[in-house]
């Protein structure tokens, strides 16, 4: 009997108990069998315990390792990127695993700029952060190095970091996995992504159809036209709206071409030169717009409500490619705004242009509009580049639009330049003096100032340090904020390539 069988017999006897079953003779020719046979005779229970003691130890001491037949998975390739040097480690730790997570995007950007990769030890925590916060992924990818990508292959929730595509996920994955894989495919092969989506879109739920369709924004081109135009007849209004939003960015689309021709008919070509714009919308407009019934345009504010015709006009204008104004109508956007100041269609034109800038993601036109139309702030301000945004904020200050300045600074997410940082600190100081809306101040300080302020000017840091409050709690908060700013300053310095 092999020791395994001896053991099984013994366990069975022990389970039943000696009251009901006597332990069997254990001896056999094997060395352990011979040993068991030599154990002195005693009570049934002690015999059983003797056998258990001997066999358990024998088995424990005689273990052999399992041998795998499957080949080991491949090792990670050599990493070209150097690893972050030691002085950076405290900052990586604090932003990746510690309580300075707010600075992680900036920290990762600095690591990327320096051409480093994150040390191996931090990779699991960093990949976890990206798994939970999708907005961090684009910042995480460049610092992973070969090792990080190799590691990411081993866990489904880290799969987002892997360059190679797993197209089967498109068929079998969860909603979020499918969104992600479609996005990856679209980045690498726009046509393939569209073909895949077109093949399955009819079977998707309405909400998913809209979400998938939005991904075509990446590398959007005329090749997408037929599919997008087909989507206009989708049952869901949400899907139609996404399709229209994409089509307005393609000047060759039927939608844009139709908008141009309607505008040509509607506006007296001479109107612009005389400083007066006459608008005569075509009679059969309703029929013309029928294929695009899913489109909706909302007024910029409650003061700017539009009537039926004005809504149609705004809609048409929002579809006209912005480049067509100087090219086909021979008028620049600022001139158009200037010349329609007193027009009875003013509201419709402005609303249309704002939506055109929004759909067509045109930051230049957005800036031009924002200088004149404060109601467009919430729609267009996010489109601006950091420079454009800082310029606009300074303009607000110059024109005494303090309320708007405060609001826009709060909404901003871009890095502030020196002047804007100064403005922000002044605003905070004023609020501290007036003791009003303290919670807003803390929000500002915590969420905005520490991550967006300009750190290059010593005077700014000093004026921040000079902020004081009579209130003990507020003062404590100020000191915490100052500490955070100092942390960020140290981090930026430590993550400069030369300091490594």
């Amino acid at each position, binding site marked *: 009997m092999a020791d395994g069988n001896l053991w099984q017999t013994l366990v069975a006897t*022990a389970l039943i*108990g000696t009251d009901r079953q006597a332990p069997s003779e254990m001896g056999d020719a094997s060395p352990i069998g011979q040993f068991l046979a030599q154990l002195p005779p005693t009570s049934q229970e002690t015999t*059983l315990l003797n056998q258990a003691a001997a066999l358990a130890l024998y088995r424990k001491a005689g*273990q052999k390792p399992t041998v795998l037949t499957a080949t080991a998975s491949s*090792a990670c390739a050599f990493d070209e990127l150097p690893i972050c040097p030691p002085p950076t*480690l405290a900052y990586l730790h604090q932003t990746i695993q*510690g309580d300075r997570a707010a600075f992680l995007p900036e920290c990762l950007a600095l690591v990327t700029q320096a051409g480093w990769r994150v040390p191996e030890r931090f*990779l699991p925590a960093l990949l976890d952060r990206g798994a939970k916060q999708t907005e961090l992924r684009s910042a995480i990818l460049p610092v992973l190095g070969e090792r990080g990508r190799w590691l990411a292959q081993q866990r489904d929730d880290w799969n987002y970091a892997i360059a190679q595509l797993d197209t089967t996920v498109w068929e079998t994955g969860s909603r979020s996995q499918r969104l992600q894989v479609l996005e990856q495919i679209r980045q690498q092969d726009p046509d393939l992504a569209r073909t895949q989506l077109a093949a399955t879109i009819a079977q998707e739920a309405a909400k998913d159809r809209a979400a998938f369709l939005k991904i075509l924004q990446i590398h959007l081109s005329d090749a997408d036209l037929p599919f997008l135009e087909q989507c206009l007849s989708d049952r869901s209004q949400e899907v139609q709206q996404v399709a229209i939003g994409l089509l307005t960015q393609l000047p060759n689309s039927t939608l844009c071409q139709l908008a141009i021709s309607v505008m040509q008919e509607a506006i007296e070509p001479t109107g612009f030169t005389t400083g007066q714009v006459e608008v005569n919308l075509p009679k059969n407009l309703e029929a013309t717009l029928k294929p695009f019934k899913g489109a909706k345009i909302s007024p910029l504010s409650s003061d700017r409500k539009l009537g039926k015709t004005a809504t149609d006009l705004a809609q048409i204008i929002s579809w006209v490619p912005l480049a067509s104004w100087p090219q086909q109508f021979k008028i620049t956007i600022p001139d158009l705004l200037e010349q329609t100041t007193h027009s009875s269609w003013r509201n419709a034109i402005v609303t249309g242009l704002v939506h055109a800038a929004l759909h067509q993601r045109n930051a230049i036109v957005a800036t031009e509009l924002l200088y004149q139309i404060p109601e467009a702030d919430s729609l267009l301000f996010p489109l601006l580049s950091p420079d454009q945004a800082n310029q606009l904020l300074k303009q607000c200050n110059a024109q005494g639009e303090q309320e708007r300045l405060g609001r826009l600074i709060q909404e901003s997410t871009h890095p502030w330049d020196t002047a804007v940082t100064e403005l922000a600190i002044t605003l905070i100081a004023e609020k501290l003096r007036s003791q009003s809306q303290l919670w807003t101040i803390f929000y500002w300080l915590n969420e905005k100032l520490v991550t967006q302020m300009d750190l290059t000017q010593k005077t700014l840091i000093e004026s921040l340090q000079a902020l004081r409050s009579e209130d003990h709690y507020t003062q404590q908060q100020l000191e915490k904020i100052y500490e955070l700013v*100092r942390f960020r300053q140290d981090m930026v310095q430590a993550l400069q390539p030369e300091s490594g």
Partner: protein
Amino acid sequence: MNWTSEQILALAPDAASAKNGQGLAIGRKWQNCGRSQSVVWGECQGSGSKPYRTQIDLTEPAFRCSCPSRKFPCKHGLGLFLLLAQSDALFTDTSPPDWVSEWLDSRQQRQVKQQEKAAEKAAAIADPQAQAKRQEKRAKKVDAGVAELQQWLTDFLRRGLATAPELSYQQWDQVAARMVDAQAPGLARRLQAMAGTAHSGSGWPERLLSQLGELHLLLESYQRLESLPPALQADVRSQMGWTMSQEEVLAKPGQVVTDRWAVLGQRDEVEDPLRIRRIWLQGVSSHTLALILLFAHGKQSFEVSFLPGTVVAAELAFFPSAYPQRAIVQSRSDHAEAITPTIVPGIPQIADLFTQYSHALSHQPWLERLVVSLQGVTVGQESAQGYLRDRNNAVLPLVANYPALWELIALGGGHAIDLTGEWNGREFYPLSAWVQGEFVVL
């Protein structure tokens, strides 16, 4: 020598201190940082008006800080140490200020006093008559406890193990408590460990029978104590919970080994309210393995510290045992050097680990764990269960839910690394690794 952050963080008394210490590892937080031979110091501005004065004697290492924290080492000590590891350029080589040299002097004086005290205690213990009396008294109690437990075991086996799931934890605890009363806490521990076995999932009858078998072997051995070799007698006594005090070991050690000791790793466990730290050392010339076992209550600090990844010359007194592992520090040098890759030998294949383990069990059948350095293993995982694999494709399971599994996989990158860890006969718990010529504390 160069220290790594992980080595230093291993000294932290808890996670919060480790975190706060890392927050202080920033040059700006410190002033007047200096170093001289094996001591570093610095001043850290805290919430008080005066900055805290923090100093580290790197030899042990030992810490002192003027802050009011009762944690040890405090966040300032850890922060300063981390700063040294990450940016040592900030520390100027200079003669120590008075507050540092005073501390160093007082430390030396205290050490001398401690040694004198230990010698006194040892002398007191050496009184053979008193000792024999104490032992006799205890032996009587233990004998009675053993007889009672054997009866209990007999009854249990008569009813059969199938009745085990019906036994409540309380019932096990009652038997265990009787063993504590009988001054055999080692038996109590075994019984408490068995209480959960019947609820530990499939295969529990085999596990329970193995545990009962080991317990039985211990009881039988105790009853034949006089017939066993002296070293094994010591093991049996220690398994019964009849532990020797430090003074007793120093007075009558199993053996004394003088060597340069490589600090291979350490592991902390909590058995409320006790914290237990195991530090594993290996002699550079003797290759002897040694376990320094430390206990601390609550937030107390451990009395001894060895930094994993260092080599320290020391004289270790081993507890008498047929397979000596546990030792206490009789004396140690002030000087620590960095460990180097081949300073202590590892074993090239997983099969050798099993040979070593079976050899150890043949000397000391109740051995709980063995520390082993494996050469050239790759770390893999299957559904987040880690395993090691050697060049012959033999595998060794890692402990389930090993906390640093993904860090270890990331560090290894699928390449062969050298790994030191604890083996308990079922699972391997990695403590440190050599990755591309660098010692890594896990």
